């Protein structure tokens, strides 16, 4: 039994995967608090799909290197995000509709291109993640992305929270609201990209929403939301990678599924905001 539990740790690539899951989960969990407070899960989820065509173009043009997929996907997400803004400003269409049109079109293009350049096998990795395929270089790339994202978000914590709470009031207090909104979106895209190898672009939004959403049902403290989300994201992701080995299931979906189950537990059993506590509350009130 003990041997079975510890067996995965004997291989260096397994250790690397657990380490990566901790790191990626932590960063995404921290950033997920911003997604939840900004109520922008759908928008960020759309942008995560926009990463795929960027990767496809990058591979087609310069081949797959440590940074080519990162830069390609970053460029594609920014292009589609800003493109949707331009379309909504230049027409009578709202931004969500514009975003949906652009990202599905780009996504379709990405799928076709990836098949054309003959990386069909890798396509599943880009869609659903393959944390076992992680190399040392990828781990370092992720490390620097995480440090940059966490550093930026922590440094701008005060004005960012004011912007999220009430953008107009924040603006009258001298907070550069518009610049911060763009910057936050850019950081969230970078964080999304960091999770590509773990959960792929189809599942990335799960990792970038669920941790803080779960904590949101358990506490009223903003600090707990950020750091609790980070710790939950990190530990749940690492645990899911281990569970993947133990019962032989795919690690990417395992991460998002474990987080989903934890959310469900909080949704039902949270002492203050849980469904059971609520129904007991309303029954007591009658």
């Amino acid at each position, binding site marked *: 039994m003990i041997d079975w539990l510890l067996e995965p740790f004997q291989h260096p690539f397994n250790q690397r995967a657990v380490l990566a899951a901790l790191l990626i989960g932590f960063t995404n969990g921290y950033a997920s608090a911003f997604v939840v407070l900004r109520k922008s899960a759908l928008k960020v989820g759309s942008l995560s799909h926009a990463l795929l065509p960027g990767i496809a173009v990058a591979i087609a043009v310069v081949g797959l290197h440590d940074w080519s997929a990162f830069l390609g996907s970053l460029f594609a997400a920014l292009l589609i995000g800003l493109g949707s803004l331009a379309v909504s400003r230049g027409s009578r269409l709202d931004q969500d509709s514009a975003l949906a049109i652009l990202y599905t079109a780009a996504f379709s293009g990405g799928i076709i291109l990836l098949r054309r350049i003959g990386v069909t096998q890798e396509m599943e990795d880009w869609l659903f993640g393959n944390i076992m395929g992680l190399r040392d270089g990828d781990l370092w790339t992720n490390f620097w992305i995480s440090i940059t994202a966490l550093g930026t978000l922590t440094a701008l914590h005060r004005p960012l929270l004011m912007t999220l*709470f009430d953008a107009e009031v924040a603006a009258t207090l001298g907070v550069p609201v518009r610049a911060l909104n763009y910057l936050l979106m850019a950081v969230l895209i970078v964080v999304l990209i960091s999770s590509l190898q773990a959960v792929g672009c189809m599942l990335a939004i799960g990792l970038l929403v669920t941790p803080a959403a779960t904590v949101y049902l358990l506490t009223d403290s903003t600090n707990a939301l950020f750091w609790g989300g980070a710790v939950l994201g990190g530990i749940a992701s690492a645990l899911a990678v281990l569970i993947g080995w133990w019962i032989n299931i795919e690690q990417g979906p395992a991460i998002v599924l474990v987080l989903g189950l934890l959310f469900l537990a909080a949704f039902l059993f949270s002492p203050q905001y849980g469904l059971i506590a609520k129904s007991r509350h309303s029954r007591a009130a009658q």
Partner: protein
Amino acid sequence: MTHPAHESCDHCGHHHELRVEDLQVRYREVEALRGVNMSASCGSCVALIGPNGAGKSTLLKAIAGLLPVSGGRILWRGTKVAKWSREIAYLPQRENVDWHFPITVRGVVRMGRYPQSGWWRPFSVDDENAIQRAIEWMDLADLGDRQISALSGGQQQRVFLARALAQEAHVLLLDEPFTGLDRTSKNALAKTLRKLTEEGRLVIASHHDLDTVRDIYDEVLLLNRKPLAFGPVAEVFTGEQIEKTFAAGVAGGKERA
């Protein structure tokens, strides 16, 4: 009109005046306001009165620097109001605030010190004192650690007032502060606004309830896309003028509360 010395203004020798000159605001093609002229000073409580869509919120937001001005100008103490000023506080309509945002009463009041503390600097003793003073001033001392979602309407309004006090604002711009409050809270808020005015602030509020205008305000701006009258309540707030303001109808464009 005499200008008694005011506590919140006395660090400056002269009297503080907010001047709106021939103000025009447009939303894309729709003209929301035109030809607005008014001038009010510290120690006055000004009501903006007009039907829905008359541009009351627009005027408040323009003074707060939240909207681009397409004509005319707004002067505070003789200089043009920039994008924002620490001396001008804006209080949004209560229904536009996300009261489920996880933040405490003290957390909101703290935001008022942002102009002084900036992006990173921890709060100084001065900041903490100003925050505490503002909280006590607004009778929120027992509620400092309470979540804002767990407050009554009157308390919520006082939290935003406390934020403006922590900010050390001279001009308070309030959008429909009395809407949705029960009678007791309305009376308490009216008293609070009077107190803030007497201490030397300039309070400007959009207001719906015509029956209470005389009890709360010193001056009135009757507004319906363009100004119909401005002056002391006793002179301007007459049946004839009110009728004219509300009879004019809202000219074109969609309604804006």
